């Protein structure tokens, strides 16, 4: 039993943090977010991309470094590592609010890898792994903006009910409508598919994931864990920024961080982040090495905690920054906006608690048994 990243995993995460600290500064994030013209993201050919809500150079670099394919099997052009390593990197991308379409692409790759047909894997994974193709995953009936969803990308739509099927929509399928989300640090699309009818056709636009309408699970669970990991990173950054700020900011002749009300607010932030991170890495471990039967509940718990933590912690960060925290000038709002979108992505806290409750009703307590 070792509830901690291994040395290799820590090294991967440390390298990611270091690179992003240089490449994805708040100044750079702001530059991307404040671009006047935003064009759709998700073009398969990077050279065709002109102005987008993303840092093309960073995205290209991440593709070359192999980050986008870290959890994709080697035979499909990836590095063949696990969800733990992927979560460790994604946490850092959240920490840096990196303006890249990473989250959607790796989530789509996980779903295709674990639930797609062999043909679908061969078709899509190498492109997703290389970062040339954007991906996105969303649930049916969800009108939320989907990070990474673009007309030129690959879109996975999974039935929001636990045992429904999922469909794949390739570039140019016409299911994605570009939208301006509250998070301007990356591109978003809306996927207006309210239901997937296993008896019906997919309008000729898409194909069933895995070839036939079968229940989704292991891929979508992994994608959910990765979204939770980004939320953990976003929340951790909000906490770090806030603590640094309240140590400096003085009122009544003392740093505001010496006020107990402020201290207790920060302590609550740490507690929320710690809960979410523990559940997220536990779920990631379940995905890589644990009991597959326990993965759905572990993933649901992770996302429930991370969605709640992401919202609460970034909101507290704005609050504890005081008036300055409410301004466009302060960077803390990038975190709040990213957290809000991620909290809703692939189901919010309530959605995932319903999954936990359903597992309870089915007789599984949802408790790990100490592995």
């Amino acid at each position: 039993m070792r509830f901690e990243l291994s040395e290799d995993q820590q090294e991967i995460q440390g390298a990611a943090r270091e690179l992003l600290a240089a490449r994805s500064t708040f100044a750079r994030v702001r530059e991307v977010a404040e671009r006047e013209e935003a064009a759709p993201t998700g073009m398969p050919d990077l050279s065709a991309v002109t102005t987008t809500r993303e840092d093309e150079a960073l995205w290209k670099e991440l593709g070359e470094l192999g980050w986008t394919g870290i959890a994709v099997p080697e035979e499909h052009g990836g590095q063949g590592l696990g969800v733990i390593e992927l979560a460790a990197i994604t946490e850092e991308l959240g920490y840096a609010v990196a303006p890249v379409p990473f989250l959607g692409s790796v989530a789509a790759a996980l779903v295709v890898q674990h639930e797609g047909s062999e043909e679908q894997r061969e078709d899509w994974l190498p492109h997703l792994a290389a970062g040339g193709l954007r991906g996105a995953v969303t649930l049916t009936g969800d009108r939320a903006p989907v990070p990474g969803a673009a007309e030129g990308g690959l879109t996975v739509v999974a039935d929001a009910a636990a045992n429904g099927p999922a469909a794949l929509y390739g570039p140019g399928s016409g299911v994605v409508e570009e939208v301006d989300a509250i998070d301007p640090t990356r591109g978003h699309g809306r996927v207006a598919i309210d239901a997937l009818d296993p008896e019906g056709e997919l309008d000729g636009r898409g194909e069933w994931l895995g070839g036939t309408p079968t229940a989704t699970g292991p891929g979508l669970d992994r994608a959910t864990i990765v979204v939770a990991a980004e939320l953990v990173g976003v929340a951790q950054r909000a906490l770090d920024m806030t603590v640094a700020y309240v140590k400096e900011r003085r009122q009544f002749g003392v740093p505001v961080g010496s006020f107990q009300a402020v201290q207790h607010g920060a302590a609550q932030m740490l507690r929320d982040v710690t809960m979410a991170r523990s559940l997220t890495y536990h779920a990631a471990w379940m995905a890589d090495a644990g009991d597959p039967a326990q993965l759905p509940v572990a993933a649901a718990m992770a996302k429930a905690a991370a969605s709640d933590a992401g919202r609460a912690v970034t909101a507290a960060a704005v609050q504890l920054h005081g008036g300055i925290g409410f301004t466009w000038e302060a960077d803390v709002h990038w975190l709040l906006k990213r957290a809000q979108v991620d909290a809703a992505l692939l189901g919010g806290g309530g959605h995932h608690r319903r999954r936990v409750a359903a597992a309870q009703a089915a007789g599984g307590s949802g408790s790990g048994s100490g592995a």
Partner: protein
Amino acid sequence: MDLTFTPEQLAFRDELRTWLREHGPAGALPPEPTDEDEQWAWRRAWQRTLHEGRWAGVHWPTEVGGRGATLSETAIFFEELGRAGAPLPADVLGILLAGPTLMVWGDDAQKERLLPTILSADETWCQGFSEPDAGSDFGAVKTRAVKEGDEWVVTGQKVWTSGAQYAKWCMLVARTDQDAPKHKGLTYFVLDMEQEGVDIRPLVQITGHPEFNEIFLDGARIPDSMVVGGVGNGWKVALTTLMNERAGLAFFLQVRLRQQLDRLVAEAQATGRADDPLIADRLADLHVRTEALRLMAWKGLTAIEQYGQPGPEGSLTKWLWSETNQLLVQLAVDVVGSEALTGNAGWAFELLRARGNSIEGGTTEIQKNIVAERVLGMPRGR
């Protein structure tokens, strides 16, 4: 990340499970009595049974009757005890706090005299740290010990002392130097409770139970040989006790929480209340929190095993546990209905008892202060 147990740990767990099946609640252990004194006798007998199976102090070295178990094995022990629905041994304070503190700070004569009777429950312990004006503010301890010949004469008052009415020994912190700065003038003693000058009065709580006591010390005597860790070192020695307190109980408490939650889920399902989406959401939230507690306990343990000291999880875990338990008992009232508001047992008792969770062992406010100042490095509070 590696959340699997080693073959040795699995063997340890299996051996314990087998033993518990025979001797625990499913086997030879009689049901828990309701009368307080009978309950104590019952838990004391249970500790003797544990001791006979060499399970009383699993983390104690083998030469003093333990198993020399690793931290992980100790955690497994508590998880399994909880899973079997078995009670804690009677003298938790002796096993988890006094014994380990003596092993670090006690001299040979003290260890020889005091350790053997702890695991067998022949002599039990209480903890004389808190005072009416010194709860979380440990430096404000006023109880005085004055040297007279080769004895110390103690005068003062202690409070929140659980088990005092049954205890032979008390881990007592008293002021031995009035002039030294707050934390410097304290000394850690072992006080014999069975003497004149020690007056124990039950302190009835909001549950109606006298779980705690007040102790009035008026000329009580402690031989010089019962000073632990040297005169003036009381603060340092007491810290050992407090660290053990935070680390030791986490596993048992989270498993107890899990048992309570399973019981509540069963009741909610039996009554159909689990179908109410609001109830279902709150139950699921409790599952999320309880699982987070389990993982944070293991995470804290990894930190100790890897770096020799606990991570920040201790205070977070204590706070999250107390809050979650309080949410749980409050939900129980909503699930069970007004039935839970009658009587003095079951959920009615738990509802009231849980109010103490966020106060005992360091209030939630203090835990937040610790987290803010020592973990997040924020400026000292005001």
